[in-house]
């Protein structure tokens, strides 16, 4: 399996990359760590005319702690974020979820933002972004905008990013006193999730976010619930996600996982 032919542009600055995207539009793809895109190219599921390599753009390689949020630039690799000393304290949910992303051999190259751009419905980083209510920082040659996580994912492998836009980075809210939990079921560690769940305590109760079931990772907030009220809420949520049968698991199994893992994780964060 070899990719179809494309031009390759190694951008040295963000404006060079944006200029290329403005000119080439939908015929261009942004290449970061390549852990999703290169497989798509090899299988010829994507045949861009131009690849814009952003990994040598210095200004995109930053993890910046602001007052209430951490900004992670587009060329920050997953392994780099995992090694960031403040991760467990500032972004505990990311610290829990990130080791589940692929394997050590792919996290070393793959970027955090690349996983979001790829928008696989069962991937852990999109789920984490939605669970935390983060934002995606988009930029084109003409403008900048911030898109909330829930508006960014538009469907299976579809996002709100326009053809001429680059994901410059993401912004994730810093955890205050929160309690977080993450769990995933997959055939093997490192495979895509059959179901992945993240839970966190919120000011008014609890939030559960689920990946691997609907076309996009989906979060739901509840007041403090327990007993049968919690069971009913989880059951309704599991059905609303519209699980389908596929080669990996039945819809029923996925709903079971949402009900059981959801209950466990909510118990963990509310205890």
């Amino acid at each position: 399996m070899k990719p179809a032919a494309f031009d390759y542009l190694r951008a040295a600055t963000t404006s060079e990359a944006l200029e290329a995207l403005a000119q080439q539009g939908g015929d261009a793809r942004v290449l970061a760590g390549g852990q999703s895109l290169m497989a798509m190219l090899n299988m010829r599921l994507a045949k861009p005319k131009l690849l814009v390599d952003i990994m040598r753009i210095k200004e995109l390689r930053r993890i910046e702690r602001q007052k209430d949020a951490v900004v992670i630039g587009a060329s920050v690799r997953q392994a780099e974020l995992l090694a960031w000393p403040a991760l467990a304290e500032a972004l505990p949910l990311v610290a829990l979820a990130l080791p589940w992303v692929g394997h050590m051999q792919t996290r070393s190259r793959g970027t955090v933002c690349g996983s979001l751009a790829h928008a696989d419905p069962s991937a852990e980083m999109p789920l984490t972004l939605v669970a935390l209510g983060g934002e995606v920082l988009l930029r084109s040659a003409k403008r900048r905008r911030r898109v909330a996580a829930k508006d960014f994912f538009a469907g299976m492998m579809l996002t709100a990013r326009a053809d001429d836009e680059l994901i410059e980075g993401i912004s994730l809210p810093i955890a205050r006193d929160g309690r977080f939990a993450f769990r995933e079921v997959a055939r093997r560690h490192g495979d895509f999730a059959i179901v992945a769940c993240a839970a966190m305590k919120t000011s008014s109760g609890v939030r559960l976010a689920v990946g691997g079931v609907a076309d996009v990772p989906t979060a739901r907030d509840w007041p403090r619930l327990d007993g049968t009220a919690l069971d009913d809420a989880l059951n309704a949520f599991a059905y609303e996600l519209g699980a389908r049968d596929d080669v990996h698991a039945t819809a029923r199994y996925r709903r079971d996982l949402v009900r059981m893992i959801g209950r466990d994780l909510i118990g963990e964060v509310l205890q």
Partner: protein
Amino acid sequence: MTRLNSNARHAVRFTLNGKPVEAEAEPRMLLSDFLRHQLGATGTHVGCEHGVCGACTVIVDGMLTRSCLTLAAQVDGCEIRTVEGLAPSADRLGVLQQAFRRNHALQCGFCTAGILMSLDHYLGENPAPTEAGIRDLLSGHLCRCTGYTPIIQAALEAAAQLASPTKETSDA
């Protein structure tokens, strides 16, 4: 900014196991093919070509890297290590390689180059590894022969030997 045209070949230069190398590649050429076809470094194997099997794993600037998910053009100017660089000399195997041999950690050998590169990198960063850590690392590789157990054994043995570099225990 560097722009390489799709229908031409372009010079790619990097350091391979400490030696500068150069050859030509179209922009779409994978690093795995560049190593094997352009440079003749066929120690790196190619299994799935979509990032799943780990056979093609090499080290680029200190990072474990699937060479089938990397373009030759991307690594211009980088430092690359492959299985050819593991043995200290042409007639001697390295400590990890010797441990593989003693423990029958390879049968057909197709997966071995990639696994050796992963373990070499991992043992360098984790001189006292646990079995769980090694299993986690190996989840990024597929081996259809060994059942993994001898590989884990070899890795633990090599780590122990590297931690107490006393005497040679094999003429392998």
